[in-house]
């Protein structure tokens, strides 16, 4: 195991070798990342800088003027923003862990060499994230409608006596959204795990089996530690994705009932396009997401104990 993890090209050791070689490596390292750094600076950081400037301005459309920190102060007394923030955190705390565990579970099941119809199961579980949003929004609204299939099913099982108003009850609408996000993105996360599982040496499992480890133990003592970089990756990606959640809400509940399912991104969209456009305040709300993600990512890196 240590052999696999050992990093020959490891970071800071390089300097101990001859300066010439270090210089060459360092220089080549820059070349490898040059294009990416330039592209991201140009297409992300430059516009982000402009957006930061915008966040200190306010006004409708092109009638913008500098208002200092007013937008940031306005956030704290904006009940719509607070509702959006709360909803987004509810999605985050409930949905991301469920999805990550489910995706890991699926990928381990589907990585079994003796399983039949693997290709079919993999494709089926992945399919939701390629299915067009328009289609799945229509069908989710239909399934969760008052006389939709979900209610019929629950009533047949006698779990409920009256049809539930999934989309117009604040709590049920949130559950519907969480179900929709999980349905759509579990297969997506699964393929990261599936691809990463290929990099785990089979012999480790064989050795573990000979030592009498159960599949449960194999999962927690081999699979999870080996997949740590990818688990960290997917949980950060999912955190970012959920904090920016927009499509599902826009298409399934449109933020309603009232603003019970409104998310931060949906609010940004409304501020920019649905209402009289205030790009300044919209940029301010965007930067709140940036700040939140930075904090959460730092926590996730710390918890996962990234190797330094």
């Amino acid at each position, binding site marked *: 195991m240590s052999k696999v993890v050992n990093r020959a090209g490891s970071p800071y050791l390089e300097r101990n070798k001859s300066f010439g070689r270090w210089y060459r490596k360092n220089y080549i390292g820059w070349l490898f990342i*040059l294009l990416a750094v330039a592209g991201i600076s140009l297409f992300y950081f430059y516009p982000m800088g402009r957006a930061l400037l915008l966040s200190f301005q306010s006004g409708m*459309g092109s009638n913008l003027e500098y208002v200092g920190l007013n937008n940031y102060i306005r956030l704290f007394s904006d009940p719509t923003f607070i509702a959006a923030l709360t909803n987004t955190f509810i999605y985050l705390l409930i949905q991301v862990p469920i999805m990550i565990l489910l995706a890991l579970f699926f990928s381990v099941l589907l990585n079994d060499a003796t399983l039949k119809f693997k290709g079919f199961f993999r494709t089926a579980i992945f399919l939701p994230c390629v299915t067009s949003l328009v289609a799945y929004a229509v069908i989710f609204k239909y399934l969760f409608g008052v006389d939709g299939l979900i209610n019929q099913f629950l009533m047949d099982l006698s779990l409920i006596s009256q049809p539930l108003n999934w989309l117009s009850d604040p709590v049920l609408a949130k559950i519907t959204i969480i179900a929709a996000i999980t349905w759509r993105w579990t297969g997506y996360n699964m393929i990261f795990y599936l691809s990463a599982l290929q990099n785990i040496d089979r012999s480790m499992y064989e050795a573990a089996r000979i030592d009498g480890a159960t599949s449960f133990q194999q999962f927690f003592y081999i699979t999870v530690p080996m997949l740590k970089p990818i688990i960290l990756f997917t949980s950060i990606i999912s955190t970012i994705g959920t904090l920016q959640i927009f499509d599902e809400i826009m298409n399934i509940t449109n933020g309603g009932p*009232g603003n019970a399912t409104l998310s931060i991104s949906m609010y940004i969209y409304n501020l*920019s396009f649905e209402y009289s*456009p205030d790009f300044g305040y919209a940029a301010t709300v965007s930067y709140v997401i940036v700040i939140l993600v930075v904090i959460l990512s730092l926590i996730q890196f710390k918890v996962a104990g990234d190797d330094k």
Partner: protein
Amino acid sequence: MEDFRFKKSWLSALVLLTFLVLAACSSDEEGGASEEGEAAEDPDTITAWAWDPNFNIAALETAKESYDGDVELDVIENAQDDIVSKLNTGLSSGTMKGMPNIVLIEDQRAQSFLQSYPEAFFPIDDYINPEDFASYKLAPTSLDDKQYGLPFDTGVTGLFFRTDYLEEAGYTMEDLTDITWEEYIEIGQDVKETTGKDMISLDPNDLGLIRVMIQSAGAWYVDEEGTNVNIEGNEPLRKAFENYKAMMEADFVKANSDWSQFIASFNSGDVATVPSGNWIGASIEAEESQAGDWAVAPIPRLDMEGAVNASNQGGSSFYVLNVPGKEKAAEFLGQTFGENEEFYQDLVNDVGAIGTYTPASDGEAYQTENEFFGGQSLISDFSTWVEDIPSVNYGMHTYSIEDILAAEMQNYLKGKSLDDAFADAQAQAEAQLK
């Protein structure tokens, strides 16, 4: 060998990078200036953005045929929300690059665009006579005494109803004509009792019907200036909310959460009435098996002084953008939608669109009887009601106020007092719009 290849690929990467950086730098310098620079040339082709191939796009195509000026019109289809996003992005970037000559904007959004981007639109007073159009269309389409929009379709509302269901419950066309919403609710209860059918399908997240109700009494979410939030002490709005709650509690509402479910509610024969803008007619006619079962009565009114049995839902107008070709675009609109009565007859016959150009309503096409609606002269009825629609200033915050009201509507339905709900909504809207 390896080293040589290595160098070559890095070299090409560097070239690409330099190119990207150059592109970015040049963008910054020219960002603001380009709009002036390009204004010199006058194009032969003008473009227009609209959203419904069977309706407003078809109307533009018909206009193109009837126009004999020397200009090529290119109509581009975009969904309405997409047009809003594209316009906002394009206009606020200040480059005007990629923007069309003519764009269709919904009346309730128009002020927001006109005021947000003051330089972006081209006034068309010289090309049309605003007085030729239904008066309620003028307030939303003009700003500072300048006419920017060419009023297109009316969103005049009607009460579409199933004659067979209503008859079974003992009601005729006459009983539904010029009624109040309170009477409508009573009828609804009878219909539910006798036929078992729901009276109406509503989306609890969509306050469209509230807007229909308050405009029939000449009121809106904002005052006459269009700037001050008018929720607390707004009598029509209070009545509308009360009616809405009464409907929800009357147990004859089929809930929908989606446009397709809304359409299904009447195509399937589940509901007895559809109070809506006239444009819903096409969707009702789509279910051919129900031909002859439908008729349209005037929309119910609020039970109060000054309320009329006419209102508006939706409706849009054409705007000319301040880009090269604007004169040609304005001329085109002026000579078709702005004055051609003949063209309006084609519009009714071929497209089924009812314009708001008043001189056209005496034309022959307006008298046509509609077989699907039991031989009713639908267009003629609608254009009579158009004249009664009270004019209101929509202001520029309809949708942001409506989102706040939708949240309070939920609270009201759950038992919050209307006074508290309105007070909270008023405070929140004022805070947001200051």
